[in-house]
């Protein structure tokens, strides 16, 4: 379970808080969709939960562990799939995965077998020994995803895992994530694809200006808003139609 209490983050020289006094509870085995417009604080929140950013105030725990006292345990417990392709372009898919898997402490045949099976599930086994720089966006996304799950994390954070990929890749990725969830992994994912989130997530939290605006199952949120039939409608109704350009 993930327990977040009064969590805030204000970047140096920033006027506003990116995340402000946020309280949140995510249950074990959930697929939690963290939704919000650009600059709402989604990536900042995920970065804090992954141990990449230090909160300005507040605290959180994942399975009753926190980074200040259980960093190593937590790093084994969680998996991260960042928004950018965090891969070495000059290494093959297999070499990238072998390296990242080894950094999780995996080794030997179990690591090799895990890489092979994941590549097969995500349709990349033919390209295992091709350099990543030659891959399409969808292929890179899938390798990026495998790199975050090789060690079978209990909690998986995904920052826009389907951005910029074709429908085929998106379908394979979502199906794979469902399999992981069925195997017991809690998934926290951010996305701008609201239809996808509506279908995929068991719980959705919409944040704006660093604050949690609403939370519930997609159906609960849709029913709460009068005259609205989908999650996109809920989203626009709660966050408005104003552009969120910022620099």
């Amino acid at each position, binding site marked *: 379970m993930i327990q977040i209490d009064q969590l805030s983050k204000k970047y140096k020289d920033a006027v506003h808080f990116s995340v402000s006094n946020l309280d949140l509870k995510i249950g074990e085995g959930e697929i939690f969709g963290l939704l919000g417009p650009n600059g709402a604080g989604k990536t900042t929140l995920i970065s804090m939960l992954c141990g990449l950013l230090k909160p300005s105030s507040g605290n959180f725990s994942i399975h009753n562990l926190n980074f200040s006292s259980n960093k190593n345990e937590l790093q084994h417990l969680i998996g991260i799939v960042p928004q950018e392709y965090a891969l070495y372009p000059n*290494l093959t898919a297999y070499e990238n995965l072998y390296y990242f898997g*080894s*950094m*999780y*402490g995996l080794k030997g045949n179990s690591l090799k077998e895990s890489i092979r099976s994941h590549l097969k599930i995500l349709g990349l086994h033919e390209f295992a020994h091709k350099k990543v720089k030659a891959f399409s966006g969808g292929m890179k996304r899938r390798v990026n995803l495998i790199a975050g799950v090789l060690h079978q994390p209990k909690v998986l954070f995904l920052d826009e895992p389907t951005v910029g990929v074709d429908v085929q890749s998106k379908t394979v990725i979502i199906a794979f994530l469902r399999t992981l969830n069925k195997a017991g992994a809690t998934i926290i994912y951010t996305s701008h694809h609201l239809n996808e989130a509506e279908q995929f997530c068991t719980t959705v939290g919409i944040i704006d200006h660093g604050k949690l605006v609403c939370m519930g199952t997609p159906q609960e949120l849709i029913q709460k808003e009068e005259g609205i039939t989908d999650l996109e409608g809920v989203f626009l109704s709660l966050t408005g139609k104003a552009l969120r350009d910022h620099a």
Partner: protein
Amino acid sequence: MHKLLVSAHKELLLLTRDLGGLAVLFLMPLLLVITITIIQDNTFKIIQENKIPVLLVDMDKGDVSNQVKQSLKNSNLFEIVQEQEESIAQDLVQKGAYQLAIILPNDLTKDLNLKIRQNVTDILAKFGVEEENAPITDSPISQKEIRLYFDPAAQQTFKSSVRNNVDKMIAQIESQSIYQAFQEELGEDPSEPLFDTKSFISFKEIIPNEHKKETIPNSTQHNIPAWTLFAIFFIILPLSINMVNEKNQGTFVRLRTLPVKYATVLGGKALVFLTVSILQFVLMLLLGIYLFPLLGLPKLDVSGRIPLLMLVALFAGLAAVGLGLLLGTIAKSQEQSAPFGATFVVILAAIGGVWVPVFAMPPFMQTISKLSPMNWGLNAFYDVFLRNVGFKEIVPELSLLLLFFIATTVIAILYNERKNAV
């Protein structure tokens, strides 16, 4: 250990797949050493074999000017080109057509002889030896001046060398003239030498020897250590760029979320780049031993020194890798790491004595020089290559290089921890 080895393997793969980067790492240092050695060796040969043309304006036309010409010829350094007008000679030198013009003034021989005879007569008179003939003149004889015109672009070292040679030549001519004047005054035949005019005190350069065999340092013995060290330190560029690339690719962010220590990540890089620096050094040695003689350059003599040389290369490599790890940790972009790294290595080389010997630097810079790891490395290399010392003598330099590696790596780790604390 497994994580360290896998990290090193990853670095090795990345390095070997970047052919351009590999070429820069191995070919550029070779090119640098070959170029510098050929230039320096040829400069030496030019001075020895291809004489420098010198303009000579002889307004004296006497014995002194003949002796000056003879001395210039005997020096084997200069080829005399006669010119009649001082102004033309000055103009030619100013335009850079000649490096040097020597102007011998009017009546140089006549006035020198007069002055010497005057002095000799005075001295003999003080000893009670009266001259048969009356002194030629009692009136004061004005000092004579040999004028030297240098090309404004001529190097200071060339100027000082010429000035010293001319000075020595004049002193010899003067002393010979004095001896001759004494002979004449004593009524001896000046054509039969009465005095031995050769220098009584001479000098001999004693060169360090090993097993009773003298090893004469040559341009290769000087250049290989200096420029190899320069090349080894240039490893901070690809190393820091490699680290900055990880930040740009996002792999560094992923690494921060993995249960792996930053020291392990750095360790993998250090192992590979240290191996590269050792390979660079081995290549340089092979170059000096096998290729240089084919290019007409002096052969590198490494007999009996290889273990110590490898040790110095290893520790110099460690210092360079430490610096690269620190730079790569701090730099946020290639725009920061590449220019800073390149400039910093050049500065370290300059203050380390790679270009100008430390003893020739101002006292303040000599103190600063002692802080440059390149100076420690260069001293250790020279100790082994040219001074034929043993392991004990290079321990201080090796210790400093090791401490530098430890200090830079620890700072890199602490900086990263502080910067990325959660």
